[in-house]
């Protein structure tokens, strides 16, 4: 891509934001006659926290699913590291370094926290079925290496005390944290968070915000998130895309967006013709 923006800049709090890593160009997504996303374009830069906000039904989750490759838009293209992305299966997306969490927690309830996070490393294990079954050679070695990586994440997210606890027994806020841990286990270069704070109390929100900032800061992970809580979005994000009825109505820094009349109307409710 010739028009790709490679200028990097340093934010007020000292983080370096790089060039564009992912670009959506004129994306339109339809489900039958319903237009979920209508001609939306925006980009995500290396190392930034990019939020997508909007009222209910604005098409935020659909947008996240387009980024994650789960939906293939009827029109428009997604460019990843400057290359046009072909329709892909979710596991192919995961191999490209994109990991996500879900709005409705999607963990294995009967498995321990540790095992759940280990599943995030599956695509990095290459030992064959035979070797896995015998627990020998490569399988054993891989388990040790991956366990070490997982333990570092457990330490990072401060969930040592629930390492062996079945996920089904955990409260909601901790489940969300485990889901984040599993996404991190894949060592993604882009992390997609679908409403990471939904249903949390103030304290849990503060913890989660801290972890999101720390992940971004420590690992340099690019983060795209959808969130309802405006306070959280404005505090966390470097840039915000605002959607309403499938259309993009604003895009810019939190301050730009806050003062955008279209955004104010969408949130305060103005009669639509």
């Amino acid at each position: 891509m010739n028009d790709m923006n490679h200028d990097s800049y340093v934010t007020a709090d000292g983080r370096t934001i790089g060039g564009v890593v992912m670009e959506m160009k004129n994306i339109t997504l339809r489900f039958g006659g319903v237009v979920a996303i209508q001609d939306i374009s925006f980009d995500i830069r290396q190392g930034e926290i990019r939020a997508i906000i909007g009222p209910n039904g604005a098409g935020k989750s659909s947008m996240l699913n387009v980024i994650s490759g789960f939906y293939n838009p009827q029109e428009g293209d997604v460019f990843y590291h400057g290359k046009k992305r072909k329709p892909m299966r979710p596991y192919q997306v995961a191999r490209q370094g994109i990991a996500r969490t879900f709005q409705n927690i999607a963990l294995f309830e009967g498995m321990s926290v540790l095992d759940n996070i280990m599943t995030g490393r599956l695509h990095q294990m290459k030992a064959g079925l035979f070797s896995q079954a015998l627990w020998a050679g490569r399988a054993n070695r891989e388990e040790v290496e991956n366990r070490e990586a997982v333990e570092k994440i457990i330490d990072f997210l401060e969930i040592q005390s629930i390492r062996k606890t079945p996920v089904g027994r955990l409260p909601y806020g901790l489940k969300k944290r485990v889901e984040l841990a599993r996404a991190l286990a894949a060592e993604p270069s882009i992390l997609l968070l679908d409403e990471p704070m939904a249903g949390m109390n103030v304290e849990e929100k503060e913890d989660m915000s801290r972890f999101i900032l720390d992940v971004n800061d420590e690992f340099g992970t690019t983060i795209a998130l959808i969130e309802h809580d405006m306070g959280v979005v404005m505090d966390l994000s470097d840039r915000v895309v605002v959607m309403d009825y499938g259309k993009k109505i604003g895009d810019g820094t939190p301050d730009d967006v806050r003062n955008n009349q279209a955004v104010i109307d969408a949130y305060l409710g103005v009669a639509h013709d």
Partner: protein
Amino acid sequence: MVQSSQATDGLVSIPALLARNVSKFADKPAFREKEFGIWQSWTWTEAHEEIEALALGFLTLGVNEGDFIAIIGRNRPYFYWAMVAAQMVGAVPVPVYKDSAAEEMAYVLAHCGARFVVAEDQEQVDKVIDVQEELSKFEHMIYLDPRGMRKYDHTALNQYSKLQDQGRAARNTLQGEIEKRVARLSYDSTCVMLYTSGTTGKPKGVVLSNRNVIQTSKNSVEFDGLRQDEDILAYLPMAWVGDFIFSVGQAMWSGFCVNCPESEETMLTDLREIGPTYYFAPPPVFESQLTNVMIRMEDAGKFKQWLFKTFMAHAKKVGGDILDGKPVGGMDRLKYALGNVLVYGPLKDTLGLGRVRVGYTAGEAIGPELFDFYRSLGINLKQLYGQTEATVFITLQPNGEVRADTVGVPAPEVEIRIEDSGEIFYRSPGVFVEYLNNPDSTASTKDSENWVATGDAGFFEEKSGHLRIIDRIKDVGKLADGRMFAPKFVENKLKFYPDILEAVLFGNGKDRCVAFINIDLTAVGNWAERNNIAYASYQELAGHPRVLETIQNHVETVNRSVAEDPMLSGCQIDRFLVLHKELDADDGEMTRTKKVRRVVVADKFKDLVDALYAGDSEVSTTTEVTYEDGRKGSISATLELRDAKTVQVAAQKVAAE
């Protein structure tokens, strides 16, 4: 009392002990810490290398002899190393409670004039940065966990491992200086300074010399026969004198291994994995472990419950005696051995206490039932009495002479004297040097002959020669007829019941005693649920007739037990009420450490005390409460005042006289 250093083979400082341990126990484990799910360990040789690297690092920062180095963090090998490294360069380590608020921290750091701070993580670093304006002598901070620290200005800030690297790089030029400084340490140089928690007024900095720490460690190690192969779990606050003595003094003296848990929340799991042989815990820790066991037993199958009940009953009968080496019949021993295989052994293992040879509890009174439960399992749990100013040990219970209501005999080389007022005084090699920058307090606590006032009232039991603590001396009073009034003695007996959270006894200068009682919402709420008793609030549950009935039974049982005590039989509870609200620190009724402020309570609820003494059967009252966000409100209630049966002992007393 002055001990020559010959008694300790010329080992007059912690760095000297470290050097001895390196040559004697080189490859034996000195420290372990669970990190990343695995127990990482350091041998004495490795630990010495780490400590020396940090000490060299301190020199590169320009640490002078006599400087104070504050250490703020949870129990991790790195902070124990920092304390010894500070001693190596002639500085004084000052461990600080890591959960102190910024202002409390500011007071402590300013009071000792710490030039350097070793802090655990961003949270602690931020706290110090917040208050550094007030710290005129503060110069440089070292942090352990680099997370979130990258963007900080590093001109007066170093990462722990980087400072060690810096020290290692300068080894050639600075090694000689370290050796010189260690050689200059004497038995009289300061080993450590610890701040007392400050329940009364501002915290005081207790200066302990090498003599205090090493002599006391040596004596207590010999008293209990502690060996090089002990394992301990270091989980109590590093700023507390007990942790310093167990994890530094005794560990360095005997050369045993200090194990640090992975995090505060994983302590019980880590305890089980390590299986310490020497263990200390305050009563609440034992209590919560027992509660866990009981709750899990409720969910067990019928057969297992039967097994548990049968053998626990047997353990209660003979377990303590077997532990004390008293004569027990053959059949009983056989049955106990069987119980050990089926119940006690596995249970102890689950609790992480399977390998405990010596266990201690202290800090507050422990319920006899709780105490006996652990001892009947064959865990050698004992009590000790001590304070920071004594370098912990004042009295200890010897093996085989353990009871729930005494604190044992004087520790080796400790002299004890009881004044006419009942106050306990002691003199020992562990008597602290001074309170830093506070000669007045030093003088009022310690006299010219080194006798120290404890502030506690107590007496020696004639039969056993054991010390019994009654109460804080300032709380002890007299009833109208001259008999002793010691509220804590009775309150503790009440608080041993799980459904009583707090109790406050009144009676100083009166002819009889009355009590306020707070129910424990968790325990009583559980009971209500099981008995289909509906309630909408704490107040409603506290006033429920069946709850009052239960509490009345407890009060009357306590009265019978108090009546048996010849000195304190006057403290029986004549009338009582169950309070309509929980005593709370936000309302000023308790300290932040959950100790009742008697004066405040007596003043605030004066109407209730008066009604109890007036003999009313009911009283209506309105109380102001403070909500968590600082708003004020009030609650009103009508409380039932109850009479409790007391045991008449006055007649006996007269007869005895």
